[in-house]
């Protein structure tokens, strides 16, 4: 009998299905995975250490760059930790705006995930559809903060500014006919809220489109059903949160169980899976798209009826209004102090978590009473998920590794930090 030998196969770090820079060392027996060792850290930027050397507000922008497909949710955890330690509550309108943008972010994240997941398994079309809708949501980001992705919109004590009354429109261009531009500007005639409302009206139909392409698709099911099964007990032991945990059948959602912002006022369902395979995780996320849409609708209704401040009037932590600075010495001093030294937080520690699109995203803040965090620990949602990749892939085929990996919704910005 000839001698058989297992192969060790290298995957990545530059591979289109690696969702960034992941290197996998796979030990395979024929096509079967025996052992899998993810090498991470290729995108490590030491965000936590950088934050230790900067005043609190200067690190909000770093939070956007952690999980760079769900920017505002990262900011939310960070500003909540600061608010908790400082003891300031943002105005109610800011809470609703945050809720709305968290859900917009969730849709953006899940759309990118859906597109990338489908393209990994071999369905090209969904990617194009998903990015079409993502573009509209990025326009919402841009309208409210000026940036399409890295918004730095949430601030301790509220949000940077109120929702704009006018939605920016496409301008005349030599590359497009004027009739075409007019059509593109059709739903941009009113305010930002009108634009988002139009989106929420269209979106359920669009999710149906994605589902037509995938949910009952024979190839899709062959690639995902019974692949990477995680039992509920195992999911808890491995530290899963978010859709990964819900896919395994545990109805755990921080928005419901430990509500923050305005989630206790919202009416929505928590979808859960049955078997805990890739297909269930897909169904859970698709249903979350619909639920997020529902939450956004409720926020729009409330925001239309209730104007008000979006930033706390405590000028020790939030900059005073430009107008007051022109005539009030005190306001001037506060502004100067905030933008040179920043504010100091009381000595102590706080942990704030949000239901990030990928799971529980937490920020643990230790302060020694200075104007910079003494230690900032970011609990990335994807970190324990990726750690479980080895266990989830054992015994599966090489091609399934890609399906399992993308069903985890991995983004290296947050895992490597």
């Amino acid at each position: 009998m000839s001698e058989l030998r297992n192969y060790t196969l290298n995957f990545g770090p530059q591979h289109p299905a690696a969702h960034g820079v992941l290197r996998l060392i796979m030990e395979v027996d024929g096509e079967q995975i025996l052992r899998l060792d993810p090498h991470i850290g290729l995108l490590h930027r030491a965000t936590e250490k950088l934050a230790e050397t900067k005043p609190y507000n200067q690190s909000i922008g770093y939070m956007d760059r952690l999980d760079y497909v769900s920017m505002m949710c990262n900011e939310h955890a960070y500003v909540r930790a600061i608010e908790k330690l400082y003891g300031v509550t943002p105005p109610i309108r800011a809470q609703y705006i945050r809720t709305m943008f968290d859900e917009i972010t969730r849709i953006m994240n899940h759309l990118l995930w859906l597109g990338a997941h489908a393209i990994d398994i071999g369905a090209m079309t969904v990617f194009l559809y998903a990015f079409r809708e993502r573009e509209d949501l990025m326009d919402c980001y841009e309208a409210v903060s000026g940036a399409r992705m890295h918004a730095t919109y949430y601030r301790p004590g509220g949000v940077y500014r109120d929702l704009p009354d006018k939605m920016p429109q496409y301008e005349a261009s030599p590359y497009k006919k004027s009739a075409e531009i007019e059509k593109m500007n059709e739903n941009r005639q009113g305010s930002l809220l009108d634009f988002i409302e139009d989106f929420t009206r269209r979106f359920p139909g669009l999710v149906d489109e994605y589902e037509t392409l995938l949910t009952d698709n024979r190839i899709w099911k062959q690639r995902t059903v019974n692949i990477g099964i995680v039992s509920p007990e195992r999911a808890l032991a491995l530290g899963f949160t978010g859709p990964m945990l819900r896919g395994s059948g545990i109805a755990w959602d921080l928005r419901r169980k430990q509500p923050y912002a305005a989630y206790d006022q919202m009416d929505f369902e928590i979808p859960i899976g049955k078997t805990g395979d890739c297909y269930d995780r897909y169904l859970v996320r698709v249903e979350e798209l619909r639920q997020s849409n529902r939450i956004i609708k409720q926020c729009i209704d409330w925001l239309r009826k209730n104007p008000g401040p979006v930033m706390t009037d405590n000028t020790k932590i939030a900059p005073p209004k430009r107008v007051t600075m022109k005539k009030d010495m005190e306001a001037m001093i506060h502004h100067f102090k905030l933008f040179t030294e920043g504010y100091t937080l009381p000595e102590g520690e706080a942990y704030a978590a949000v239901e990030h699109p990928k799971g529980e995203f937490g920020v643990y803040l230790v302060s020694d009473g200075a104007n910079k965090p003494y230690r900032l620990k970011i609990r990335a949602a994807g970190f324990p998920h990726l750690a479980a990749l080895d266990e989830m892939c054992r015994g599966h085929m090489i091609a399934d590794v890609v399906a399992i990996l993308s069903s985890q919704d991995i983004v290296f910005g947050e895992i490597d930090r």
Partner: protein
Amino acid sequence: MSTVQLSEDVYRELKDKIAKSVIALDELTITVRAEDLREVCLALKNPPFDFDTLIDICGVDYLHYGISEWHTTSATTKGFSRAVSDRIIKSNIWDGPRFAVVYHFLSVTQNHRIRIRVFCEVDDAPQVDSVTDIWPAANWFEREAFDLFGIVFNGHPDLRRILTDYGFIGHPFRKNFPLIGEVEMRYDAAQRRCIYEPVSIQPRTLVPKVIREKNVHAHPLSEGEKSGE
């Protein structure tokens, strides 16, 4: 269950193993001795507490705790110049052990959280027992704390570096590790390979770390002293 109730229950169950138990901002923090860690963890994992999920393991280096870079009690004629490193003012010096490991646990079944802090007794060789066999999720978190702080987790099955580069020297999140690192890499045309050299840039502080005793306890402005309007 409220945090106070949880704190009482935990204290009743593990009285002799808890060095300190604090509730701040509705978060329960208990400090345990390193040798009791595993026993405490096992007790928390099982009923009646059911802390089934390990949320986070975080290393903390208390070397510069309470040390500020700039201190003004009265008006000065001299501002804060950039590129400071030697002006260090100690206000409330940390006299405890240098390294700590902070665990966050969550109970999905009972919906409560707890934080456990363990100090490493020896500053030069910090070590703690591993909890990977109690919560498998601890595996990578412990590797991370080992990589960044050099805390050794006894009994960990595979304690390798995780985030830093292959062949990296040092533990970058220690407070005495410079922000810009110790080596820089470039391609050397003569040797036709990548070479590592000591860093050539000076570390700079753009905004000094300031501890304001007066501002530390901030309260929202009351109606009478409202400014800025």
